[in-house]
C-alpha cells in the first residue's frame, strides 16, 4: 500500500517534497480524530509518540491486536515540517517562516501557506483534533492540554486525556495564525497539547503522552479493549486566572533542581541565579504561592524578563498576564 500524502511539491534539488500521513480505520468516513505534530521540526516528543501510536493502530486495524478494535477513522500526521525535522529546524528551513503562523493557509500562496492549507484541509472535518507541541529548546512543559476560549464540550473532553493539567488560556494575536485557532471555526472539538521540551526526547513525557492518547481513544470509544493505567487519573483543571508566570528580574546563569509536575509550597526554592563572571549568587527564585509546577526553564543563560517557571494555582492568581513569545 502506498503511503498517502497531504501535499506533494517539487523542491529545488534534494528530492521532491511530500508530507506523508497515516489514514487508519474505515476509509471514506469523516475522520473521527486527527492528530498532528511536528509543525515545528525540532519538537520531537509528539513526532515519536504519534509514529508509535500509528504503528499500534495499524496493527489494530489489520486485526493483529485481537483484544482491540478500531471504531472510527483516525488521521495521523507525525511531522508536518518534514524538512525541518531533517535539518533540526523549528521553522521551515528555506525561508525561515513558522508554519504555525501561516494558518488557515492559502493553496496558491507562499510555500508554507500551501503547507498550512494542506494540513488544515485534511484535518478540519475531524470530530476531534489535537495539535501536539513541545515548547522550545529553552523550556520544559509538564504534559498538559491547553484550551483557548473552549466550548463546554471541549472543557469536558479535555479531561479524557488524563493528563496532569488542563489549562485554559486567552487567545492573543499570535494564536490567531495557528492551526489550533483555524480549527475553532470548523465545528467539532480541538485541543493543543504541550509535552516536554524541543530538541530531544524526554521518554517519561513521551510515555505519559502515549497513555493520554490511548485514554482518549478509550473514552471516546474509538478503540475498544484498552486497560487504562490507574496512576493517570489525577487530572486538574485550571481556568484562565490560575496560571502564574515567574519571570526573572536578573540576567545571569540560572540553575535548578526541580521537576515539572511537582506541587510546590509557597516559598519553596525553584532555582538560583548566578553571575557567570564573578560567580556570586544574585538571586534565589522562590514560589510566591503554592501550586503545580507546569513548566520550568532548562536553558541556564538568563536575560532580564525571561520566563523561569509556570505555576498552576488552586485559587485565582490576581494576575492574568501571559508571557508572550512562549506560545506553541
Amino acid at each position, binding site marked *: 500500500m502506498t503511503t498517502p500524502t497531504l501535499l506533494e*511539491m*517539487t*523542491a*529545488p*534539488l534534494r528530492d521532491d*517534497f511530500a508530507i506523508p500521513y497515516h489514514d487508519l480505520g474505515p476509509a471514506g468516513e469523516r475522520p473521527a480524530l486527527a492528530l498532528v505534530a511536528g509543525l515545528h521540526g525540532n519538537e520531537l516528543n509528539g513526532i515519536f509518540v504519534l509514529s508509535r501510536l500509528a504503528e499500534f493502530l495499524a496493527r489494530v486495524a489489520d486485526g493483529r491486536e485481537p483484544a482491540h478494535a478500531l471504531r472510527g477513522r483516525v488521521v495521523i500526521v507525525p511531522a508536518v515540517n518534514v524538512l525541518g525535522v531533517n535539518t533540526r529546524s*523549528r*521553522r521551515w528551513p*528555506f*525561508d*525561515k517562516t513558522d508554519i504555525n*503562523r501561516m494558518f488557515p493557509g492559502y493553496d*496558491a*500562496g*507562499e*510555500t*508554507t*501557506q*500551501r503547507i498550512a492549507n494542506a494540513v488544515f484541509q485534511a484535518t478540519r472535518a475531524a470530530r476531534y483534533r489535537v495539535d501536539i507541541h513541545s515548547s*522550545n529548546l529553552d523550556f520544559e512543559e509538564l504534559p498538559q492540554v491547553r484550551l483557548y476560549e473552549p466550548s463546554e464540550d471541549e472543557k469536558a473532553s479535555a479531561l479524557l486525556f488524563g493528563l496532569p493539567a488542563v489549562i485554559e488560556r486567552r487567545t492573543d*494575536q*499570535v494564536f*490567531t*495564525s495557528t492551526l489550533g485557532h483555524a480549527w475553532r471555526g470548523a465545528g467539532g472539538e480541538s485541543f493543543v497539547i504541550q509535552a516536554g521540551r524541543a530538541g530531544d526526547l524526554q521518554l517519561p513525557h513521551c510515555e505519559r503522552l502515549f497513555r493520554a492518547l490511548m485514554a482518549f481513544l478509550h473514552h471516546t470509544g474509538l478503540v475498544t479493549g484498552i486497560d487504562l493505567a490507574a496512576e493517570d487519573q489525577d487530572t486538574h483543571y485550571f481556568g484562565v486566572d490560575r496560571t502564574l508566570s515567574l*519571570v526573572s528580574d*536578573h*540576567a*545571569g*546563569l540560572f540553575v535548578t533542581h526541580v521537576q515539572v509536575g511537582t506541587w510546590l509550597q509557597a516559598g519553596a526554592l525553584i532555582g538560583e541565579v548566578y553571575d*557567570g*563572571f564573578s560567580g556570586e549568587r544574585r538571586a534565589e527564585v522562590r514560589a510566591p504561592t503554592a501550586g503545580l509546577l507546569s513548566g520550568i526553564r532548562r536553558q541556564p*543563560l*538568563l*536575560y*532580564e*524578563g*525571561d*520566563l523561569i517557571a509556570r505555576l498552576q494555582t488552586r485559587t485565582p492568581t490576581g494576575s492574568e498576564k501571559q*508571557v*508572550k*513569545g*512562549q506560545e506553541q
Partner: protein
Amino acid sequence: MEILHDDIVSLALPYRETLRVQRTSFVGGGGPRVAVIAGIHGDELEGLFVCHRLAAWLEQLAASHPHALRGRVDLVPAINPLGIDTLERFVPVFDADLNRNFPGDAEGLLPQRIAAGAMAALSGAALVIDIHASNIYLREIPQVRIAEDFAATLVPLAQGMNLDLIWLHGAVTVLEATIAHSLNSTGTPCLVVEMGVGMRITPAFTEQLLIGIVNVWRTLGVLAPDLELPPPTHTPLVADDSNVHYLNAATSGLFVPDIEHWMAVRREQTLGRIVSPLHGGTLAAVRSPVDGILFTLREYPAVYEGSLMARIMAV
C-alpha cells in the same frame, strides 16, 4: 542646534555585556519632534545608511544654517542591535520577530522590553518613519505601505516622501503587532518605508528618500519654512489589494529574470524562467498576468514551489 547621544533601551545580557539601543538627537527650537527608525530586522541595512545620510545632512545644516532646525530629529538606526551584530533578521536567542512584539511590555521578554522602550521613546512624535529593506529574497522599489485604517492621516504625508509607490493594505491581524500599527493606533503617525533588498544598501534609493524626508520635515515645521531644499523628483503611484498581482513559483528551481526591476510589462510578457541546474531546458516560464508595473522582483535565485518571484501593479 544641539547634538545628543543616549540609549532608549539598556538591558543586561547574561554574561557581562549590556544591550543598548542607541539614539542620536538633533535638537533645535521648540518645534515638532520627528524620528527615523531602522534595523528592526537585523538583515535590513538600507535604513541604517539613510540614518547615516540624514545625520551627515543635519551636521552640515548645523554648520551652514544653525537656526534652520525648528524642532527635534531623533535617529534610532538599529532598534534590533543584537540582530544586526549577529546578521540575524530576528532577535537572536528569542527567535522572535521584533516587529511582531509591539506595543511590548517593560516587564516582558527581551523583545517585548525593546518594543516597550521604543514605544515610550517615539510616542507623541509628529512623524515616525520606520525604514525596512524587504528581506534577502525580494528587491523592492522605494515605497510606503499604509494600512487602510490610517490612510486619511498617512497618505497626504506619504505623497510628499519622493517615493515611487504608495501601497494601501487591508487589515491583517498579525500586523497589529507591528510598531507602525502600535504607533498609528495610539495617535503617533508612522510611515513604513520599504526599499531595496536585505543585506545590501542601495545609495540611489537613499538619496531619493532623503529628499522626500527633509521636504516632509519642512512641511511639518521641523525645518524653517524658508530653508531651501532639493525639490522632489518622484510622484508615487497608488496600489491596493485590487490591483496588485502576486507571481508565485509554479515549480522549484532557479529563477532567472529576463527584465529589469520597475519596468512596465505587458500581459503574457515573459518576465523570467525557472530552470534546473540538472537540465538544459526551462521548467517554467514566468509570465505577467496583466499590463502593469513590476515593483517587486526576486533577488535570491533559488525558489521553492510557491515562492514569491514578483509583484505587479496593474495599470
